[in-house]
């Protein structure tokens, strides 16, 4: 399908050549095919990105290359030619000489991918020791050198530390060090940054790109984020339901997607569709009455004592904000910036150290008992992870009516009627009532969570990263749903997100937080066009999809793509 373009390249043979690869997983319900005849090439020195939604088989493809499938996964057919070998038919012992030495892997989640009880340096040194690239003596020094190359500051010190003593970004650098230690020809990066903050994401990807460009290493980059793929990859492979639906040069696919699925994926990517209007978001009314007013909020946490003196961490530092009725105020910032803590203070889920919170004109800063309960009724929450926030033993009907039962609203029949009505509002069929959370997809679950939050007709719903655990195309649907519900019911949202691209489509006001302070506040269109604070500009620049790799970047002004 893309042969003509490949022949145009000056590289003669692909480094990795996957042909007709089929993989299936054995489950209790029978054999489930995950890959059906996948063809894929990775050329020397190039970045090839595999994009698709979860369940599309992109991650399975990446793992099948070195046969690191889960225990119940099996390769049914196909070849994986790497150099002179077919990795599918190689013996386990031969394969071990390829893994780590010729093909490195950068795993998805740096917080769980390092052995928690081993020192960072030892974990890097292990690769060198396994492949006989260092002696017992030299391994430690060489490991520190590799960590340094991976961009870990104070590498020699870090090498002696344990994973939990490092931040997520630093751990990912350690994992990159493990992947590059033996100077492999190919690095497989499976969603290498999706667990990291956007600004860290960019630095890590930049560094990985820089390293591989230097050494001519090829990368197979698996990502759900089209923006990331557009920025980094020369070649793009789009996967859906275990098949490759489109493959070719990145620019060609982005400018002229042939397959309908690719078009949908492109339309859903928030970072690539910044120009898209905030469809049904109601116009900002500056004169809408304030619902929540926070004045000079401060929250301090006590830190573990060190050397006798008590230290405190100021998680929220002099934060003032106003949320008006029927509007959306977004709190944006990296993890640790205090945005979630601020929301918890406003909802009285945590005690303020100082400052005041007014809810509908009433001071609720120290609300307790009945008053706090009333506040709960008027302010509801939608959590980040819909897989964890719904009780797996409840039916969906029970999940949605639980707030009604808790506040003894109506009788059984009227509560069920309300649940049916709410399901209808979030565009789920009434039959969903009888089902269990496990039977629903992530997007459906989040719709249920939204229905539950709306059950008591609250004045405000706090959405804590409501879409960051969802696939891009589903993200767009959920955001549209939230906007629609706001237009219908006049509910206000306090919207917490690390993703400026998402916020842009929904918020009337955006407050950018950093280190517990609001550094900038304003309507999103102002922030995007004339951000005053350097940190806001950094956040905007970090949104993936802002640039293209290679010369093509020049013909598009970055501001428009941001």
């Amino acid at each position, binding site marked *: 399908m893309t042969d003509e373009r490949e022949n145009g390249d000056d590289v003669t043979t692909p480094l990795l050549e996957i042909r007709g690869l089929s993989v299936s997983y054995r489950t209790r319900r029978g054999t489930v095919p995950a890959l059906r005849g996948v063809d894929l090439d990775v050329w020397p020195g190039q970045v090839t990105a595999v994009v698709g939604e979860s369940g599309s088989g992109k991650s399975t493809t990446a793992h099948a290359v070195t046969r690191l499938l889960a225990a119940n996964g099996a390769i049914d057919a196909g070849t994986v030619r790497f150099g002179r070998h077919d990795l599918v038919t190689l013996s386990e012992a031969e394969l071990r000489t390829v*893994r780590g030495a010729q093909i490195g892997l950068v795993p998805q989640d740096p917080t*769980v991918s390092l*052995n*928690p*009880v081993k020192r960072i340096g030892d974990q890097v040194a292990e690769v060198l020791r396994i492949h006989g690239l260092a002696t017992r003596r030299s391994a430690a020094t060489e490991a520190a050198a590799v960590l340094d190359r991976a961009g870990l500051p104070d590498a020699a010190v870090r090498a002696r530390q344990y994973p939990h003593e490092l931040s997520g970004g630093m751990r990912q650098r350690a994992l990159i060090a493990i992947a590059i230690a033996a100077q492999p020809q190919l690095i497989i990066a499976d969603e290498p940054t999706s667990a990291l903050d956007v600004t860290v994401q960019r630095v890590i990807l930049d560094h990985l790109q820089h390293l591989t460009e230097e050494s001519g290493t090829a990368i197979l980059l698996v990502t759900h984020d089209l923006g990331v793929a557009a920025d980094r990859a020369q070649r793009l492979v789009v996967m859906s339901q275990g098949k490759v639906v489109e493959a070719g040069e990145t620019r060609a696919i982005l400018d002229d997607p042939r397959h309908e699925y690719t078009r949908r994926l492109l339309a859903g990517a928030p970072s690539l569709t910044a120009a898209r209007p905030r469809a049904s978001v109601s116009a900002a009314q500056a004169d809408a009455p304030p619902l929540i007013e926070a004045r000079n909020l401060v929250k301090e946490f006590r*830190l573990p004592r060190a050397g006798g003196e008590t230290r405190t961490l100021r998680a929220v530092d002099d934060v003032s904000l106003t949320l008006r009725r029927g509007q959306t105020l977004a709190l944006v910032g990296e993890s640790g910036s205090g945005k979630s*803590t601020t929301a918890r203070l406003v909802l009285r889920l945590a005690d303020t150290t100082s400052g005041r919170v007014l809810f509908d004109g009433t001071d609720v800063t120290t609300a307790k008992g009945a008053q706090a309960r009333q506040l709960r009724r008027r302010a509801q929450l939608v959590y980040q992870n819909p897989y964890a926030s719904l009780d797996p033993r409840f039916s969906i009907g029970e999940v949605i009516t639980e707030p009604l039962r808790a506040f003894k609203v109506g009788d059984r029949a009227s509560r069920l009627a309300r649940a049916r009505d709410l399901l209808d509002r979030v565009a789920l069929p009434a039959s969903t009532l009888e089902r269990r959370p496990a039977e629903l997809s992530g997007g459906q679950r989040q719709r249920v969570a939204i229905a539950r939050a709306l059950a008591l007709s609250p004045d405000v719903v706090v959405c804590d990263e409501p879409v960051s655990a969802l696939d891009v195309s589903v993200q767009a649907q959920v955001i549209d749903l939230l906007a629609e519900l706001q237009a219908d019911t006049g509910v206000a949202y306090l919207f917490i997100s690390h993703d400026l691209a998402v916020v842009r489509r929904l918020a009337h006001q955006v407050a950018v937080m950093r280190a517990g302070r609001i550094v900038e506040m304003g309507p999103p269109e102002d922030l995007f066009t004339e951000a005053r604070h350097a940190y806001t500009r950094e956040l905007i620049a970090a949104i993936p999809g802002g640039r293209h790799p290679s010369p093509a970047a020049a013909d598009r002004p970055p501001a428009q793509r941001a």
Partner: protein
Amino acid sequence: MRRYVVKRVAQAVGVLWAAYTVSFLVLDYLPGDPVTAMAGAGMDSGQVDPAQLAALRHEYGFDKPVLVQYTEYLGRAVRGDFGDTVSTGRPVTSVLIDALPQTLLLTGAALLLAVLLGGGLAVVATYTSQRWLRQLLLSQPPLGVSVPTFWVGLLLVEAFSFRLHWFPAFGNDGLRGLVLPALTLAVPTGAQIAQVLAKSLLTALDQAYTETARAKGAGRWRVHLRHALRNASLPALTVVGLLVGQLIAGSVVVETVFSRDGLGRVTAAAVTAQDIPLVQGVVVFGALIFVATNLVVDLLYPLLDPRIVVASDRRASFA
């Protein structure tokens, strides 16, 4: 670190006090007193002069109000004096100290066997790629937990002493005499260790870091032992700490079955004779061993898992 140990020792003292107090109250509540039991054992006719009994009770202090008895005994117990045994008149403390080495030897050997057998079973069962072998091995621990200790003991004696004549059936003679009782005691203990370790090994092998290790080119054995086992050993270690209590309790049965001298036999005899001072001494002694072992286990955690910080202030809040 030092503050932590001091705090833990203080907690241990609290546990010992609670053990003493609860055993005192329970024993006080039970009908009958040791003087009656003693008199009943000493006289064949069953006719005892009530005045003599009263005199005896007065001598031992059983006629005083409960609270006075409690404070007096507690005061002495703190100094290591649990009074004299009612049945023989020897000091309780010296009876216990005489019995201790045999029991420590038995429980120590049993614990070693339990860790080796249980741990070995768990490692092999989770390592093997033979389904039948894994199923076979993993079905052993539930069996080991559920069969009664005395029955295992009798079975082992029948097989290895009476039929094969490999080991003596009873007595305290040397290492050969230790094998069967230690094995008997190790069966339920090892089974529980195997259950916990196998479960946590499977969990560890499912973690992302084992995939990282495999991606490095590490072989299965290396992944299993160097990466998974150390992470999996923590829950097993916790269980070992708790099982020490079970071992001491188990020694009562095992020492009786194998006619070995030791703390278990002393306990059984003391309970039969309603020898209250001795029973109390046994309870506090058992609690002491249990508390000490668990302190050692807690101090071992940070060596195995660097994430566990031994700190006196655990109320650290997270931002």
